[in-house]
């Protein structure tokens, strides 16, 4: 039992004040002992917050589409085009309980030309529902209306519009652009889109056209892919297996990108990193803890007369143990607090150099001093017990 109860509050207060003043009198030596604790805590805090920010950043890659999303593409297995059945895709939302929405897509590439400028752009043919599903906002104009019934109209991505704009003539709603040899009218321009993992094309360098009018410009015309929004929390693995089974044709090999699996893979890679850094931090803490033990043992040896005198005036072995243990814990908590601040600063540098938003996980800041204090408790125990077991007579006689 470490703590004797009578008058414990008054005694603990006194002991705390004394422990603090003893540490201050040790000055430089205390500071050196702190170094290991500081480095250990700093690396653990930096790593935890680095991981925290990395996770936030990886979630951002799915911010637009969400994580309950599948992107399915098809590749031809033989000479015949890898077309998917539009009817089968349309039926998914009605028949599969996990599917909320399924949007068919077809894509191709073509050269776009206007006013003497040329750009190689992607063509994405999709029904109007895509704009809502992928949260595509317009900077100008409108989306092609269904009623235009295969008029040659499209919406340009932001970068594509800028690439085609000359100094005199900006490309915008109403501009005529030659795409793949066909004269298209641009009815709208998209606001810049932050690219995400599940985007079927880079929207910024693409033209969006209605799917039912795609045959003219995309060789096979029909859908060769789809985006599927699943019920939140749905088992994406099972859903993707069901859907690929429903859509399977002998001509196409289906590939599925599953937001959750991608996220999981990213996080697993990061976990490997984190584990390594945690080990580095733990080793530094361990070295720091041994340093603290060393400093405390030296302190016990130097203060033998004090220990003997305290024993003579009525300090029990428990009192002496608590005094030295408190000193060790205070020392390491101080190191942990400084280390936490240092770790937060390192996390800021990591965020800054990676172009991430800086964000601290608040619990990590409390964790630093707590872990360091725990170290102090563990590594302070042996010196404290040594001090409490000194023979008072010999201690009083020590030089």
């Amino acid at each position, binding site marked *: 039992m470490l703590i*004797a109860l*009578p*008058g*414990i*509050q*008054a*005694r603990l*207060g*006194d002991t705390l004040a*004394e422990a603090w*003043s*003893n540490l201050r*009198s040790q000055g430089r030596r205390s500071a050196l002992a702190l170094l290991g604790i500081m480095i250990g805590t700093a690396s653990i805090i930096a790593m935890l917050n680095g991981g925290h920010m990395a996770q936030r950043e990886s979630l951002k890659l799915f911010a637009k589409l969400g994580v309950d999303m599948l992107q399915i593409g098809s590749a031809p297995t033989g000479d015949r085009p890898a077309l998917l059945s539009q009817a089968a895709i349309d039926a998914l939302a009605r028949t599969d309980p996990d599917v909320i929405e399924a949007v068919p897509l077809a894509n191709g590439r073509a050269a776009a030309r206007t006013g003497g400028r040329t750009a190689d752009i992607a063509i994405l043919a999709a029904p109007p529902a895509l704009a809502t599903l992928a949260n595509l906002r317009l900077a100008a104009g409108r989306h092609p209306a269904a009623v235009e019934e295969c008029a040659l109209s499209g919406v340009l991505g932001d970068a594509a519009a800028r690439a085609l704009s000359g100094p005199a003539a900006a490309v915008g709603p109403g501009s005529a652009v030659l795409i793949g040899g066909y004269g298209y009218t641009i009815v709208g321009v998209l606001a810049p889109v932050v690219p995400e993992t599940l985007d079927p094309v880079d929207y910024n360098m693409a033209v969006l056209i209605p799917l039912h009018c795609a045959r003219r410009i995309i060789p096979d015309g029909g859908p060769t892919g789809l985006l599927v929004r699943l019920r939140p929390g749905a088992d994406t693995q099972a859903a993707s297996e069901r859907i690929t089974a429903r859509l399977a044709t002998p001509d196409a090999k289906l590939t599925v990108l599953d937001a959750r699996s991608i996220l999981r893979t990213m996080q697993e890679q990061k976990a490997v990193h984190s584990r390594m850094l945690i080990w580095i931090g733990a080793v530094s803490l361990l070295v720091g803890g041994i340093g603290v033990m060393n400093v405390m043992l030296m302190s016990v040896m130097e203060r033998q*007369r*004090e220990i*003997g*005198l*305290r*024993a*003579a*005036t*009525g*300090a*029990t*072995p*428990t*009192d002496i143990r608590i005094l030295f243990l408190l000193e060790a814990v205070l020392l390491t908590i101080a190191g942990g607090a400084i280390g936490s601040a240092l770790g937060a600063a390192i996390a800021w540098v990591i965020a800054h150099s990676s172009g991430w938003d800086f964000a601290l996980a608040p619990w990590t800041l409390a964790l630093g001093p707590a872990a360091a204090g725990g170290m102090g408790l563990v590594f302070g125990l042996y010196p404290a017990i040594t001090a409490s077991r000194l023979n*008072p*007579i010999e201690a*009083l006689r020590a030089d």
Partner: protein
Amino acid sequence: MLRLESVSKYYAAPDRAIAVLDEVTLSIASGEFCALVGPSGSGKSTLLNLIGLLDRPSSGTLWIDGEAVAGCSAHESARLRNRLIGFVFQSFHLLPRLTAWQNVALPLQYRGVPRDAQRAAAEAMLARVGLADRTGHLPGQLSGGQSQRVAIARALVGAPRLLLADEPTGSLDSSTAQDVMALLAALNAELGVTVVMVTHDRELAASCPRQIALRDGRVLGSGSGTC
């Protein structure tokens, strides 16, 4: 107040045990002022350590204030020391980082007395030993005589029954030594605290009401000297 019966202390040597104290039987009444005298190696300090519960006898029994204390654990001994015994040492043993009153308050701290009460009691005791104007000084700022007065205040602040002094004037010049002796005598008379003092100084010993002479671990005579 204090009774020892057949108390022996042996130290183990390679081939045999050496008796530092050999069957000491002794009784000291409450309020007595005793000098413990004898040549070096006669066992004075060992006896003082046994009485002060800093050490345990190899055999025999020891009563303080009616309590048999020879077999107490380290924890119980510390509690008894805190309650019953005050120590004064030749080299003062003040803690250098604590002020005079904080040094004096140490025994009260280990009793769990609230800090304000500690300070009040320590300052009162410092005033009693003539150091009312030195309560906030650090030991380094005090002379030898003043330091020993602080140590005496510390020994007595908890109102112990027994004051044990090990060569309390050994580090002081003769006039300061006389002042300190006079203070001890006054406190003995005033507070009724029993004093046991180890000393080499025949003159000092002679000034004590009772002398206990030790030689080779045995009590030679403990007749009450001249009062």
